[in-house]
């Protein structure tokens, strides 16, 4: 690639980024403004810089700092990731690489299960988890992941695993490897990009998932980041804390970004198919 084209590409990307990140910059900037000035002096450069919002936001709930909400989110996200990696890669392998009767039917059912909007199932689902005694625990947010109910991720696994050349497993088959070995030793390592993607997305979906956390986590002690953020606003006509909202929103991006950056290492190292002749 010529120097000129490289430079042009960088320029294009930087311009696009500047436009895209303006709202984020505004959010960061307003998180350092005195609360009263967030809307009254909405410029990008704060006239007065303060850390007040961060302190107030962090300690806005008695008996529960924002750190607790972050920790709770991590617990939920961590288990959800493990669950999704487990459930989705197993089901994904079967759909992608194995032949079995009724495969198309099961696949259609699997995909169909994400076509029904969640809001219509919320109440029956709540009743189910209530019967199991799981309400007000993290279980409704975690256990379903181990059972591959997030069909998006099964589908993602299927699509990635199907891009792997068929010859890969043939050699192993001749060597008499079991399906489990083929899954565990060949397909799974080669699907690292898909696994990383699943982990990243599970993290983000779970981290941002407001509705089910709202419903299944009742007490303050169990609340997670999205619920904690909502506590800053009072749309019922009361007083809100925009400083708290902005500062804790900024703060809550940190872990996600860190997780994302860390996972990218695996992505760049994940070119295992290079050895393929």
């Amino acid at each position, binding site marked *: *690639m010529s120097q000129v084209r*490289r430079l042009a*590409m*960088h320029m*294009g*990307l930087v311009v696009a*980024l500047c436009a*895209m*990140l303006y709202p*984020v910059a505004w*959010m960061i900037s307003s998180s350092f403004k005195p609360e009263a000035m967030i809307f009254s002096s*909405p410029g990008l450069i704060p006239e007065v810089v303060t850390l007040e919002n961060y302190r107030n936001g962090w300690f806005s709930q008695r008996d529960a700092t924002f750190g607790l909400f972050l920790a709770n989110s991590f617990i939920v996200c961590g288990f959800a990731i493990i669950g999704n990696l487990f*459930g989705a890669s*197993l*089901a994904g392998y*079967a759909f992608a*690489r*194995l*032949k*079995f009767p009724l495969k198309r039917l099961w696949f259609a059912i699997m*995909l*169909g299960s994400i*076509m*029904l*909007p969640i*809001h*219509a*199932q*919320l109440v*029956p*689902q709540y009743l189910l988890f209530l019967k199991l005694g799981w309400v007000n625990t993290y279980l409704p947010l975690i256990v*379903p992941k*181990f*059972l*591959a109910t997030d069909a998006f991720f099964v589908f993602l696994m299927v*699509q*990635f695993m*199907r*891009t792997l*050349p*068929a010859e890969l497993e043939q050699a192993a088959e001749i060597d008499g490897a079991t399906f*489990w070995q083929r899954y565990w030793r060949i397909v799974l390592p080669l699907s690292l*990009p898909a696994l*990383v*993607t699943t982990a*990243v*997305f599970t993290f*983000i979906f779970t981290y*941002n998932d*407001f509705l089910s956390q709202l419903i299944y986590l009742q007490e303050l002690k169990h609340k997670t980041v999205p619920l904690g953020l*909502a506590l800053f*606003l009072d*749309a019922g006509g009361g007083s809100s804390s925009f400083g708290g909202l902005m500062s804790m*929103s900024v703060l809550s991006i940190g872990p996600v*970004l860190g997780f*994302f*950056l860390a996972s*990218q290492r695996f*992505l760049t190292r994940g*070119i295992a198919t290079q050895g393929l002749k």
Partner: protein
Amino acid sequence: MKDQHARSRRKRHRLTPQQSESRAAYMFLMPWFIGLVLITIGPVIASLYLSFTRYNLFSAPQWVGFENYIDLLFWDQVFHDSVIATAIYVLCSVPLILIASLLVAAVLNQGLSGLAIYRSLFYIPSLIGSSVAIGFLWLQVFGDEGIFNDFLGWFGIAGKSWVSDPSTAPATLVALNVWTFGASMVIFLAGLRQIPASYYEAAKMDGASSIAIFRRITLPLLSPIIFFNLILLTIQSFQGFTQAWILSRGTGGPANSLMLYTVYLYKQAFEQLNMGAATAMAWLLLLVIALITGVLFWSARYWVFYGDDKQ
């Protein structure tokens, strides 16, 4: 004795390769089957049943046959508004996100320096795209005093409040959705990583131009991932909720222009306590999505190429 017995039984029931493959497949699917039976199927069937009832969440549902469906389809003006709003939303967002994410992913995959930084920066909007704070941020961009109007001002164009006018509000919602294209981009990047480097090396040795490589190698090999993103985005856009909810402050307005299908469904279910109508809406949506997904899957045989395809 026992061992012998067992061994002889195993012999008698020796599985053909196809049988053992099926058996393995069902073992791999076991967690999913358990989830299907224990968690998924119950609420799905319940919602189908509820769609034929009048149900306010608290008292027992009363069977009303197709009344909810007929009411929605023939009498409910807001439902019609929501169908139009959703159609616009899906038709605009899906192609725009696909193009933007594929384009940026392809550019980033060229081996530019600072890849990790770019990738993360492009991804940030996806991280906060459904946060409650976004309602205020979008007002700072497309509101009357927003930066978009400042930008137009440089060219002498008079601005307005883009988020408030029912004729432009849907565009700002689409913009918000496209703004979070980073998620699809990450999937594309992972897909690009999965393409064996040897393919590229061979093509380069043959002296192919980078555009030819993109068309002959990248696009076909990436097609399963493009297909995945297409299906994912289609379903997600049909079910788009959070962003419209936050932008419209839970109203679906101005003048129902942000009343996406699921927003109305939610309002019916949990604000009007009209769960019968809400579940009926859900099943109508399921039918539409299933139909469109079916068409997409049918079309896939012409443009999606899998590594396990028999040549």
